[in-house]
C-alpha cells in the first residue's frame, strides 16, 4: 500500500535485492496487464471470425475488432468521440457533485446522530432499492429538460454509496480524537475540517468510487432517450444507422473512460489513505 515511503526506510544493505524484487513484480504485473487485454481481444476476434464465417450472420462482421479500430480515426476526426465525452462528462460530473454535496452531509448525520440514523433507516433502505432508472419517467415529467432529468438520475444513483460510505467511515473514527481535539481548544468547525474530514477522506473517496461505478452504468441507458448527445446517444445513433463498427467503437470508448475514471479514484484513495497495510 505504502510503497512510496518504502525506499527511504529500507536499510542500505538490503536496498539492491529489495529494488530488484520490486522491479521484477512490476514487470510481471505489466506483462499480465497486457496479456489479459490480449486474451480479451483474441476472444473478440475469434467471435467475429465465427460471425464472418457463417453466411447467415456475415453482415454483422463489422462488430469485429479490425473494423472497430478502423472506425476510431473517423469518429475522432469528425468529433463524435469528443462531443459524446463532453456531453456525458458534464452530466456525470454534475450528477456526482450533487450526490457528494448531499451524500457527505447525510453520511455525517448518519454517523453522528442516532436519532437521525434510526429515523432514516427505513426510508433510506426503501429508496436505495429503487432502481435509479425507474425514476426516469417521473424525472422527465418533473424536469424541464432531458439533460436535467439525466443529471437527476445520476445523482439519485450516486448519493447512496457516498452517504453510507461516509457514515461507515465515521463509525470507525476513534472517539478519543474528538476528546483530544476538544481538549486542545478545537471549535466544532475545526473538528470537522482538521479531524473528521481527513479521518474519513479514505471512506468518502471509496464511496465516490462506488458511486462513479453506479453512475457510469446508469448514464448510458439514461442517454438512450430524449437527448441528442452523449455516449448513450451515440450508440443508439450508430445502431439506427447500421454502422456497427461505430457502435462497438463507442462501446469500447465507454469501457476505456470508465476504467480511467475508476483508476483515478483508486489513485486518490491511495493518496488519502492513512491506514497502514497490516504487515
Amino acid at each position, binding site marked *: 500500500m505504502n510503497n512510496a515511503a518504502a525506499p527511504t526506510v529500507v536499510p542500505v544493505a538490503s536496498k539492491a535485492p529489495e529494488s530488484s524484487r520490486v522491479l521484477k513484480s512490476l514487470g510481471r504485473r505489466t506483462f499480465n496487464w497486457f496479456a489479459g487485454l490480449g486474451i480479451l481481444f483474441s476472444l473478440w476476434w475469434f467471435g467475429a471470425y465465427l460471425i464472418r464465417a457463417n453466411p447467415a450472420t456475415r453482415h454483422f462482421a463489422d462488430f469485429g475488432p479490425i473494423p472497430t479500430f478502423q472506425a476510431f480515426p473517423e469518429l475522432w476526426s469528425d468529433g463524435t468521440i469528443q462531443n459524446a465525452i463532453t456531453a456525458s462528462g458534464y452530466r456525470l460530473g454534475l450528477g456526482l457533485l450533487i450526490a457528494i454535496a448531499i451524500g457527505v452531509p447525510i453520511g455525517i448525520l448518519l454517523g453522528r446522530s442516532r436519532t437521525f440514523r434510526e429515523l432514516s433507516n427505513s426510508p433510506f433502505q426503501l429508496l436505495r432499492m429503487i432502481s435509479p432508472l425507474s425514476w426516469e419517467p417521473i424525472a422527465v415529467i418533473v424536469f424541464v429538460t432531458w439533460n436535467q432529468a439525466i443529471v437527476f438520475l445520476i445523482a439519485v444513483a450516486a448519493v447512496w454509496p457516498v452517504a453510507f460510505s461516509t457514515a461507515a467511515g465515521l463509525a470507525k473514527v*476513534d472517539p*478519543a*480524537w474528538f476528546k483530544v481535539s476538544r*481538549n*486542545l481548544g478545537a471549535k466544532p468547525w475545526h473538528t470537522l475540517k*482538521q479531524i473528521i474530514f481527513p479521518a474519513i477522506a479514505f471512506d468518502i473517496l471509496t464511496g465516490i468510487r462506488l458511486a462513479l461505478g453506479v453512475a457510469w452504468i446508469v448514464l448510458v441507458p439514461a442517454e438512450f432517450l430524449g437527448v441528442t448527445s452523449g455516449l448513450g446517444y451515440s450508440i443508439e445513433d450508430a445502431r439506427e444507422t447500421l454502422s456497427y463498427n461505430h457502435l462497438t467503437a463507442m462501446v469500447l470508448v465507454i469501457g476505456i473512460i470508465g476504467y480511467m475514471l475508476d483508476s483515478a479514484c483508486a489513485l486518490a484513495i491511495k493518496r488519502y489513505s492513512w491506514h497502514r497495510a497490516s504487515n
Partner: protein
Amino acid sequence: MAVRGVHIKIENLNHRYSAKGPVTFDRVNVEAGPGEALVVIGRSGCGKSTLLHILAGLLNPTSGTVHLDGTRVKGPSPRWVMMFQAPHLFPWMKVSQNVGIGLRFARWPEKKIRERVAEALSLVELEEHANDNVQDLSGGQQQRVALARSLVMEPELLLLDEPFSALDAFTRASLQKDVRSIAKRLGFNLMMVTHDIDEAVLMADRALVMAGAPGKIVHDLKIDLKDPREREDPEVQATRSRLMQIFHEAANSPSGGAERVVGHESVLETNPAVNL
C-alpha cells in the same frame, strides 16, 4: 517556553454519572500551590479519571467547583490540558503537525507554530522525528509526541491519566523523570493519576489517596524528597513503604471502601511494579 503554575482550588466536588446512578465521589476538597505536582492513587473505579475529566473541563461535576487562579473551570482551555493513557495521535499528520494542532486551532501564524513546535519537540527529545509518520514511532515515542502536543499550549496545569501504564519499564522510567523535570523547569502544575506506587513517589510533591464508595480523598501525603529521585534511594524506599501502608489502611478501613472491593483483585497484587 515560558510557563508558570497555578493555584488550584477544588471545593466540595460531587459527581454522579446519572441521576439514579451511584455517587462516584463526594465532598472532594483539594488545594494546591503553583507548580505543585499532585498524584492521585486509588483502586480501580474509585473515580480518579472522572475527577481528572472534571478538572480538564471535559465533564461537568454534579455539584461543587474547580477554580484555577480564581478562574472557574467550565470547559476545556489551553490553560489546563489533559494527556490520556493512550497517545491518540492523528495518524494522517506528521509528528510536527500533531504537535502543532492545538496552535492551529488557536489560529497562530505558521511561522510561530513552527518555532513553538520545535521547542516542544526538543523538550521531549524528538527533534529528529519532526517529519516522521506517527505510525512509525514506538509507543514511548508516541506518548512523547502526545506530551509535546500538550506542552505547546503552555498549560499552567497538565493533567495526566495513567499516561505511562502502557509502556515498558525502561521507557516509563525515563518519561517519569522527564515529565517531572520539564514541569519543574517550566513551573507548571501536574495532576496525575496512577496505579503505580513507585511512580507516585518518584513524581509527586503530594500523593492523594482516594478510596471509598462514594470516593473521597482519605489521605494527603507530602513527599519532600530531593531531585532527581532514584528508585534505589533509601529515602525513596521509605516513602514508598509509608505510602503503601496508607494505601492498605485506606483500602481496608470500613470507611475506606473495603466493602466495595470485596471480590476484586487488589491493585497491589496485580501491579508488577509493586512488590512488598
